[in-house]
Every structure is written in C-alpha cells, then in structure tokens.
C-alpha cells in the first residue's frame, strides 16, 4: 500500500502536521488489553454499583425501572439497526426510516398532537429546544415555567436561554400543583411560552387545560412535558390545548443506564411542523410508485440551512426511539392502557401504606399516577442510608431541588415493584424513622 501511495512509511503521511505539533511520545494511557481482560475490568467496576437488580429501587424522578421486554434487545442488537448511521441514503435505509415513521405515529397518538419528530437527545434538552422554537414562532423572549417542571429541565432551559437570549420566570407550587393565580399573573404579552409538566416532578397530575388558558389568552405557546407511561391514563396534552408536548422517553423500552442514552420525544401542532427540531421521517413513493420513506422537511436542518436551521441537532437517539417503538408494539393498545392502570392502583396502594407509617405523611394530596411525595419526620439522608442497608433505594430526596421540602421524599412505582416490595418499603421506612428518633431523642 505504501508503494501505491508513494511513501516509505506511514510516518511520512503525518509530516503535514508541523513537527512541534506532533506528540512525539506515546499517550499516557495503559497498553491495550485482551477482550477477556477488558470484560473482567468492566465487570469489576459494574460490581461496585447498587443497581436495581441488587436493590429494590423506588427512585424515579424522571427515569424508571420498568421491565424492558427481551424482544427489544433482540431487535435493537441486530447489526442492521445497531450499526448504520442517519438514513441519508433512503433507498438502503428503509428499515430505519419506516421505524421512525411508526414511532412518530405512536408518539402522536400518545400525545394527541399531529406532528412528531423522530426523537431528540433526551427530556430536559427537548424542553430547551421547545424554548428555541417558541422564540422563533412568537418573536418573544420570555418563558414562564412552573416549578413542577423537572428541575433538570428548568436548569437546562436556563442554560440554553443564556445563549439564544431569553428570560426565565418560575411559578411556584401549592399543594403539589402549579399555583394558578401566580401563573396567570406571570404570563403577559411578552411571554413566548408557558411550560408545565404533568404529572409534575412531585408526581401530581396538573390540570393542563385550566392552567393553559393563561397562555392561550396572551398568544404564548403552551409547552407540556409529560411521562409517556402515564398517557394511557391521562388526557393527552394535545386535547388539553398544548401546542407542544414533549418529554423524557426512557420509560419506553430504554433501560436506566445511569441516565442515558435514552431519547426525548417532541410533538406539536401542524402550525409548527416547519419549526420542528431534528429528524422527521415522511412517507413518499419511488420512481416506480413503490411506497417508501425518507427524511422529510430537511430544509429545517443544519446540514441544509446551516445558521438558519431550526435546531443544531444532528446525531440524535434513533436506536433508543426504535426501542420505544418495539416496547409500545409489545404492550399494544390494551396492554399500554392496562400498564397505566396497574401503575395507578399500585401507587395508590403504596401512598396509602406509606402515609400510614408513623412519621410519614403525604407532602401533597393531589392525584398521582405512578409517583408521589411524602414528608419524613426524621433526617431524609439518614433514613435513606438505613433503608439502603436493607437493600432498598427508598426514593429521591427533594432537598437539593426544593429547599422548602428539606424533609421531602419522592417515591416511584413500576410494574416491577410488587406489593410485597411496597410493604417491605413501608416496614423499612417505619423502622428507620423510629430508629432515627431514638438516636436524636
């Protein structure tokens, strides 16, 4: 090969790099290992994590320990889905493109909005992208955000806002839900978008329609973040007047993976179709009239529109969206609904059992689907520590994100959390709290 190129050594090819910029030493990294050794190394690291197989996991806060059916792995691990890139050549990418089209249809059904993209990075950055869209759509630069929106989403929105330039105003919660009056007060003619989440971060189901009125009134977009697993039960945001419905897709077919990769879904009204961020698959025909799929509306995208693109996203999370589609097909119309009902019933049971425990009380009484918040009459971190010793991850402490709820604990339920495990949690919490009280008093 060197001869064909006309050099004596590969090193010659690197001479185009000015000598002083050549590293001239080996990287300070260990030498390569055999596959067996790498496996042992990584297995040893994994072994030092208390995953949901080792602890009974009641942590949620946006990502949930659902059971991912085996066919999801079987299909997504097929090299034909795993190894290609973005379908720039549709003729040899029909599999991926059709899967995107099926996914868009499913998310559109879930959210009750006609337009769905093929998927974004994940939840919070999708919220920030909605902000960017809202500015483009309204020409306004003010966001009104309920504090029921996931703290990570609010923080990400604020980070992005420093860039594209927008003001972020937060609205408080009362009894677990967004304070209607404060919201009305906060929204004005300068407001580009109102951001709600339902169920909100404290698990409470918001009355999107009622709260959204303020946005409508001032011509601001209503952006609703939601947990897709609750959409078999809850009125779809689209029916509640949302212009944009989006959220974290992990509960659908994606494992926890310590936070990623998952995907963000993003749905909107027809009106915004040409402002959508990211890839969208569309149906069309080939020259022989055969049905096919392509990347539609590419004129929105960075590779065509460059600085005028509706978003900068390129590589997204196609495989994770495929996983979601397979999971949804596996659940099916009835199963999806039943799973939602299962979550509501087990969560109601858990809420009842836990708040019956001495030293535990409801943080709010609002209706919930699969997650709820309680107050502990003992230091939350100490209680969590004690539960962990019993092999239970009891929940998500609210202190960091909601200083006013220093004593707050957020508890999530999935179909993997059995009644027995819920009872175990109740016992563990009870024991931990009384132990702590003894300790202090």
């Amino acid at each position, binding site marked *: 090969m060197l001869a064909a190129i006309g050099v004596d050594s590969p090193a010659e090819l690197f001479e185009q790099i000015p000598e002083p910029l050549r590293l001239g030493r080996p990287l300070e990294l260990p030498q390569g290992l055999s596959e067996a050794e790498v496996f042992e190394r990584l297995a040893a690291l994994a072994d030092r994590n208390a995953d949901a197989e080792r602890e009974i996991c009641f942590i949620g806060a946006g990502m949930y320990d659902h059971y991912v059916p085996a066919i999801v792995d079987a299909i997504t691990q097929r090299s034909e889905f795993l190894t*290609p890139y973005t379908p720039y050549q549709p003729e040899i990418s029909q599999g991926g493109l059709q899967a995107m089209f099926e996914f868009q249809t499913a998310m559109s059904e879930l959210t009750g909005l006609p337009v769905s993209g093929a998927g974004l990075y994940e939840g919070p950055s999708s919220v920030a992208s909605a902000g960017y869209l809202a500015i483009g759509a309204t020409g306004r630069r003010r966001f009104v955000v309920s504090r029921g929106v996931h703290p990570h989403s609010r923080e990400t929105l604020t980070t992005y806002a420093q860039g594209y330039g927008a003001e972020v105003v937060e609205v408080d919660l009362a009894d677990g839900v967004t304070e209607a009056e404060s919201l009305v007060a906060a929204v004005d003619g300068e407001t580009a978008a109102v951001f709600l989440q339902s169920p909100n971060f404290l698990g409470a189901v918001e009355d999107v329609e009622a709260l959204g009125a303020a946005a409508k009134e001032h011509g601001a977009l209503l952006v609703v973040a939601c947990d897709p697993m609750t959409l078999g039960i809850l009125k779809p945001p689209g029916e509640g007047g949302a212009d944009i419905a989006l959220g974290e897709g992990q509960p659908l077919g994606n494992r926890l993976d310590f936070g990623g990769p998952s995907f963000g879904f993003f749905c909107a009204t027809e009106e915004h179709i040409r402002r959508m961020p990211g890839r969208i698959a569309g149906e069309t025909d080939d020259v022989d009239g055969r049905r096919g799929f392509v990347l539609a509306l590419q004129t929105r995208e960075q590779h065509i529109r460059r600085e005028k693109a509706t978003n900068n996203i390129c590589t997204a999370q196609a495989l994770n969206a495929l996983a979601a589609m397979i999971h949804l097909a596996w659940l099916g119309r009835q199963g999806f609904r039943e799973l939602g009902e299962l979550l509501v*019933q087990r969560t109601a049971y858990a809420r009842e059992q836990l708040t019956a425990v001495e030293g535990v009380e409801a943080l709010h009484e609002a209706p919930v689907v699969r997650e709820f918040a309680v107050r502990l009459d003992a230091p939350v971190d100490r209680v969590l520590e004690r539960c962990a010793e019993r092999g239970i991850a009891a929940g998500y402490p609210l202190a960091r994100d909601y200083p006013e709820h220093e004593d707050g604990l957020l508890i999530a339920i999935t179909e993997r959390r059995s009644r027995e495990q819920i009872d175990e949690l109740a016992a563990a919490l009870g024991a931990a709290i009384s132990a702590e009280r003894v300790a202090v008093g």
Partner: protein
Amino acid sequence: MQRERAVTIYEKSKPGRRAAALPEAGVPEKPLDELIPAHLLRDEPPRLPEVAEPEIVRHYNRLSRRNFDLDTGFYPLGSCTMKHNPRLNERVAALPGHARLHPAQDPKRAQGALELMWLLQRSLAEICGLPHVSLQPSAGSHGELAGLLLTRAFHADRGETRTKVLAPDTSHGTNPASVTMAGYEVVKVATNERGGVEMDDLRAKIDDEVACLMLTNPNTLGLFDENIAEIAGLIHEVGGTLYYDGANLNAVMGHSRPGDMGFDIVHVNLHKSFSQPHGGGGPGAGPIAVSDRIEPFLPRPQVVRREGGNGSGPLYDLDYDRPKSIGRLRGFQGNFGVFVRSYAYILSLGADGLAEASETAVLNANYLKARMAEGRAGERLPIAFDRHCMHEFVLSGKSMKKELGVATLDLAKRLLDFGFHPPTVYFPLLVDEALMIEPTETETKESLDAFADAIEEILAEAETDPEIAKQAPYTTPVRRLDEVKATRRPVIRQTLVD
C-alpha cells in the same frame, strides 16, 4: 435486500391481539375516577398496534433487512468514521451494574459508574491534550453549543460581550447552527488553495467582536491546517477562544493533540472515534475537553475524585458546587451507556492501539486516494486539493457531471447496486459535486480495492450509457424516492381509523 412492499406495524394490527402479559396489580383496586378526577382522564387508549409477539419479531426482522449496515459492507461515509463496532462493548454496557443503575442513585452506591466516568475523562483529557473534561453533551453538536456557551460565560466573566464567531466555509452544518443557537453571528472564513484557512481573509475578519473561531483539524477536506499555530495566536491575541470540532479526531489520536495546537475547547464524538455504534442516527455522545481558563464554567454536575482521608480509598462524587458553571445541558449525567462502550474501546486498544488506529486510518485513506487517482476516476473525479490527506479526502464530480451528465448523486445511487454505502456527498460545500471518502482503519485492502474497482466500472458504464447511473439504483428495496413530495406535502404519521 428485502424487496417486498412496505407494510407498517399498524397495518398488521388486529383488534384484541397482543404480545405483553402483565403482572396482576395484586393490591386492592379502586375505580380509576376515584383516584384521578374524570376530566383529567383519557377516554380512549392511544391506537397503538395490536399484534402478537411472533408478528412483531417478524415485522422488525424484515424491516432490518431493508437497511444496509456496517456489518454488511464498506461504509465510507466521510466525516462519520464508520469504523467497526466491537461487540464486546455491547456486552459490557449490558451488565446489570451498568444497565439497571438508576441515575439518581446515591453516589456512594454508584462508585463503579462514577469511577468509570472519571477514568474516561482522564483518558480523553490525555488524548486531547486539555486538562478538564465534561461528559455531559449528548452528541457533537451538543458539545458545540456547550463550547459556545462556555465562551460566552468566559467573556461575560471578564465583563465582555462579543457578537461574532468565525468558521471556515468548509465547516460542518452543525457549527453555524450552534453559533446561532448560542446567540452569536457567524462570519465565514475563506479557504486557501492548500485547503486550509485563508490567512488574509482571517486577518481581515478578526477583531475584538470575535468570541470564537470554530475549526476542524484535519478539516472536512481531510487536510491538516499547517497554519494552526499562527491562527491560534491571532485569535488569542484578540481574546477569542479557539474551538476544535473533534469529528475528525480519528486522524490524529496519539499523533497530535488539539490542546497542543492551541485549542481551548474540543468536542469528541464518541460515536465516531471511539466506536459507539451509530444506531441509525444515534445514540452518541459529545464530551468536551477544555483548558484551565475555561474550566470554571464547565456544566454542572462534574464528576470528581476526592482523595479519601486516613487510608481509605478515593471517593468519586458529583460536584454541583460550581458557582461559575453554565449549568446543565441535559438531565442527569450524560449518555453513560456510551461512556461504557467508549471506555471499553480505549482499554482494548490502549496507548499504542489508538495511535495505530489513526495511522491505519490515514494509510487507508491515502491508499484509496491513490487508487482513485488512477484510470477513469483519476480523470473524471479529480481530488479537490491534491496533497497527502489525513483520514479522509474529497473528490469533485464536477467534470463527470459536465462531460457525462452523471452527477455525484447518480454515482452515489449507482454504488448502492454494487453493495457499497456511498461516500458523503455535496459536502463540504466549497467543492463542486463533492464526494467525501473516509475508509477508516478497520477496512481491509480488499474492500478498498473493491470500492475503487466499482467506481471504475460505474464510470466506464457511464461513458457508454449515462442513463444507467442516472436511473440507479435498481436492486434496492425501493428505487429513487420523491423527497420533494415528502417536504411539500409531508405525510409524517400513519392515519388510523377506528
């Protein structure tokens, strides 16, 4: 490939069918509307498909056969580094200790995951020659946005506000798109006859309104910009930052480091240089490495290692206490599953292996470039800038189009019939009818030769009958698709009736 007519999963749906069996609730149940007010409830479940498991498996198996993939053949998609994806990485990512670890788990009980992230940060810092790393960005363009927000914060911290970001006309579309999203104005810089930055044009455009220069080096022509040191000097003189688009890092791993070139901020596409499978368009990850002066502004939280007092080992933790941080770019800690794969990849190759990978990538590119300089290709598809390339090179189909009436797109489509994924086409923009070819280090000489032979054959065929290429492809599941229609009258979801 599978040629039957496309049928969607919804079209296979039959009321009452299902795959999932769900557990019993196993708790005393209450009527739904006692638990949630009726007006907040959904009337009809979403019209998801109703299909039994065997049909779901068959459906997606058949769909998969309508995809071309890297494990089937040569995929020289320029700028995307379609290198082999070791299956070991999938195996270790799937270990329950990784796959079922909740992102909000107490750091004390996620030490393995945090240590892995810390080790990956250290590895990337060494490879990039910049001391600090944040793994948060979800992909390259997310890293670009992060870099620009860091630049903004860096300047704001010194009481400055700047408006302009420079980027060469060869830059990738995400660069200008990120610039706008970050609230800056893009200023395009010309390219010189060597394929590098046109220095006079650069000088002319530099002033103290310049916040940043975004560069890819080697750039999207696959050429290393020899003036990089001088360029860095000019930008730093006016107090701007230098951003390195790391999409082409695969050319220089262990040979040259962005930090040593004078860059302040680098993004790394783990789904390119570090073998994360591309998944049909993600997932990926775009960690950033930065210099000391940028460090205070890095996203929150940051993975840190705290030396353990009195003999106890070090403790890995998430540091939220970063007053100058630009804040979060996303939820939780980033695409951890991608980190596991990329760290496994780095462990597998090691110091010499990474350098060797880049060396072979460059060798393969130059060999294929040499093959493309022969015969008809040499004549019809001249190289845009004729020098040794790094890991990729760009040809122009201009004369082919003029003389044979066969456009780069036609050539690309005809390649499909030969069982190859085409190169990246019509990018970079400054090359007419561009063909951007990146073979990567994991291809054999045989596949490079087979590709060159196919191009030769297609050109020969085109000389006698250009229509063959212009009507291509013929053997794919569908033939050329009407993309205009898909944009004019977009049909982006299935219409369902019930």
